[in-house]
């Protein structure tokens, strides 16, 4: 069979497409849930109307986004059984448990309380309504934790033994699966990266409105909040990324060697800035390197030995039998770089933005009309030309996409860097696909999902743009007088619902 259309290849493409697509919505959901909850808390505590308007504005964008996150998540769970049935048979004993935990503990939570939050504006007292969005936020984070624990087990299988008789892996220590350092560092890294997405999203959209001098009070608070989140999350992502990298150097040396295009082990090992390699011959034709840095990233010193691709391949051949144990090296190498590059660029732009929009750089006092003035870029004594002054807003808008690109490449690198293993060192990807599912079936589902996703992406983006442009809603009488008892006030039984589909 043509390799490009082999069921394994198709199933991998399908998994890649659905996962990367799903993960465009997941980080935004995680971060916007918490940010919306934060803004609503600010409203409940201060009763400043701008916070309620901000809550409604970001909350609506959050809802448009979570709808897609939820429906694409269902596909993930079904896909293991549909396309990877031999994987499911082999690891179900271990891998199924965190998935079931996720559904029972986290997803029920999230889905139930989101219904309460959406429809509860005129049914729940203010503080209980606020608690609902915090529950949603907690649910999204818990969800991420269980899924990442499951994924970490594929990266670094622990707490199991092989049952030869049943031909499968069996769980021996669930606590270890949930608390191994791979799971914890990966969770830390993914959550911080998720907030990077939300921070950039908030800063970018606020910048869009501020550049037009619209909705200034709401958007100025949102901009500053977004930028602070961007910076804190950016630093968190860098720290967690470094920790995760050190864990990976120990657990998956092949992935990290591929990420660096380090063909032969060296001591001290250099960090590669640019490399162009020959995969067949196993060396780089062009390489620009920083000496010793890779040793530092792997082991915290500048002189230690880091094994290369050829070393690990040889070691794995001795351990697991003849074969090629190298992942797709250009993808790993560039995926790693796009991830770090775009992630760090968004952190840098966030830091610059926070500095540029601080109080000193507001309009001169005589021109101010109130404390909620549009931040104006007064870098120099003379005012900037409008074109140049607008540049920052444009940059902020573009930066919205950076963390998404970084996240996607991060996952592509993580998953493709593990190949040819689906469970590192235990189960090969080619042994994991469903043996009884035909090429035509996988092709049908892949084309079906891809087309559907493409159409939905267009719809979602158009809706987001529409609601972003519309800006925060004006508040109504009902918004400012929330009910005092659960189930709503009975004074006027025919009062229209505050929210209805």
């Amino acid at each position, binding site marked *: 069979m043509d390799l490009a259309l082999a069921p394994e290849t198709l199933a991998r493409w399908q998994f890649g497409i659905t996962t990367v697509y799903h993960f465009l919505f997941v980080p935004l959901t995680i971060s916007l849930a918490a940010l919306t909850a934060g803004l609503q808390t600010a409203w409940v505590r201060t009763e400043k109307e701008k916070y309620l308007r901000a809550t409604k504005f970001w909350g609506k964008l959050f809802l448009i986004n979570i709808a897609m996150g939820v429906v694409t998540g269902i596909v993930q769970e079904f896909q293991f059984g549909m396309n990877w049935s031999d994987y499911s048979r082999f690891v179900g004993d271990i891998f199924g448990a965190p998935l079931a935990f996720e559904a029972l503990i986290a997803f029920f939570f999230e889905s139930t309380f989101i219904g309460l939050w959406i429809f509860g504006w005129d049914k729940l007292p203010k503080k209980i309504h606020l608690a609902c969005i915090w529950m949603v936020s907690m649910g999204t984070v818990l969800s991420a934790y269980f899924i990442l624990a499951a994924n970490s087990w594929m990266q670094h299988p622990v707490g199991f033994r092989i049952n030869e008789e049943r031909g499968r892996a069996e769980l021996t220590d669930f606590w270890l699966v949930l608390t191994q350092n791979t799971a914890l560092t990966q969770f830390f890294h993914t959550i911080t990266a998720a907030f990077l997405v939300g921070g950039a999203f908030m800063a970018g959209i606020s910048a869009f409105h501020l550049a037009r001098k619209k909705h200034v009070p709401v958007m100025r608070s949102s901009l500053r909040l977004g930028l602070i989140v961007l910076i804190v999350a950016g630093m968190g992502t860098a720290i967690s990324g470094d920790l995760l990298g050190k864990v990976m150097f120990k657990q998956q040396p092949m992935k990290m060697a591929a990420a660096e295009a380090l063909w032969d082990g060296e001591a001290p090992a250099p960090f590669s800035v640019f490399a162009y390699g020959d995969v067949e011959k196993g060396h780089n034709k062009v390489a620009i390197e920083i000496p010793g840095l890779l040793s530092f990233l792997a082991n915290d010193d500048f002189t230690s030995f880091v094994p290369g691709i050829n070393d690990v391949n040889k070691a794995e051949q001795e351990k697991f039998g003849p074969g090629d144990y190298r992942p797709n090296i250009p993808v790993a190498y560039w995926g790693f770089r796009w991830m770090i590059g775009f992630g760090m660029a968004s952190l840098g732009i966030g830091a610059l933005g926070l500095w540029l929009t601080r109080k000193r750089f507001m309009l001169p006092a005589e021109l101010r009309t109130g404390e909620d003035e549009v931040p104006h870029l007064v870098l120099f004594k003379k005012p900037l030309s409008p074109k140049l002054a607008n540049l920052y807003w444009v940059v902020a808008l573009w930066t919205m996409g950076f963390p998404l690109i970084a996240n996607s490449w991060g996952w592509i690198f993580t998953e493709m860097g593990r190949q040819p293993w689906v469970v590192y060192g235990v189960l090969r990807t080619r042994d994991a696909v469903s043996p009884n*599912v035909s090429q035509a079936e996988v092709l049908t589902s892949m084309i079906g999902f891809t087309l559907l996703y493409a159409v939905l992406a267009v719809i979602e983006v158009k809706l987001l743009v529409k609601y972003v442009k519309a800006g925060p809603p004006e508040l109504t009488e009902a918004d400012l007088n929330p009910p005092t008892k659960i189930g709503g006030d009975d004074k006027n039984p025919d009062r229209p619902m505050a929210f209805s589909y």
Partner: protein
Amino acid sequence: MQLHDVWFVLIAVLWTGYFFLEGFDFGVGVLTKLLARDRTEKRVLINTIGPVWDGNEVWLLTAGGATFAAFPDWYATLFSGFYLPLLLILICLIIRGVAFEYRHKRPEDRWQTNWEHAIFWTSLIPAFLWGVAFANIVRGVKIDENKEYVGTLLDLLNVYSILGGLVTLTLFTFHGTVFTSLKTVGDIRDRSRKLATRLGVVTAVLALVFLIWTQVSCGDGQSLIAMIVAVLALVGALGFNLAGREGWSFALSGVTIAAAVAMLFLTLFPNVMPSSLNEAWNLTVTNSSSSAYTLKIMTWCAAVATPLVLLYQGWTYWVFRKRIGTQHIVDVH
């Protein structure tokens, strides 16, 4: 009772929860074309399930996740074997979820009409296909000695399974009609009750044929009792509906669903998915379950989480207990 038997029961409970809850919201989706006369009435119907449909759907994800964890071989055989029907269900669930959330987000007539069509079809198709799938599981499918499904798509479409599909479709729609007569006020509530009577009769006829067929071909004493409960509950639901006791009617249409699911699972046990090729190749609770350790952990998790889930989901229904009618729908865009 061993742990894998406990998990067989728990998975039956999860499917019961799913069909009970999403059953009525599928039904309401179908009713948007069967019952609603105009857009405002459609919106009343959709809003009766608005706060809860998402939580209802999680019962499916939990049933799927629990099957994966407790019976990996069952999960693998079922999901890879029923590939195309499941694909269709998945696509429907994707479009359906998005349709609920996006329909009201633009004022254009065409936009809203398109999503309304989507809500109808993506509620109807899964409601039908789940019946087809479960009828096939009970009847037995071509499973070989390696636990793999070796049949084709056409093997899944037979008179028995299609009848099963019609039963779930009509039963869910009936359940939905009873639900809307419980949750609405005004003209739509009266029409809903009248429609429930007619739908109930059709459902009763189809369900009776299907359940007796099931009982005769693979039932035993216990499944007979479940069948009798299902039939009596359905008759009771119809009777209470005629008498205008909507709460009781809804409770009993729920009991019908629960008893019917119980009957299907009772006819299965101790199999989880019988093979039509050779009895020795049946998937059973023992040969397809997880290790005792995994089942133990899962049992603890279920013991703690399930009551909590029931508690807060129940609370949601309490918060949104008030009936709604066309007067509560305001046109805002």
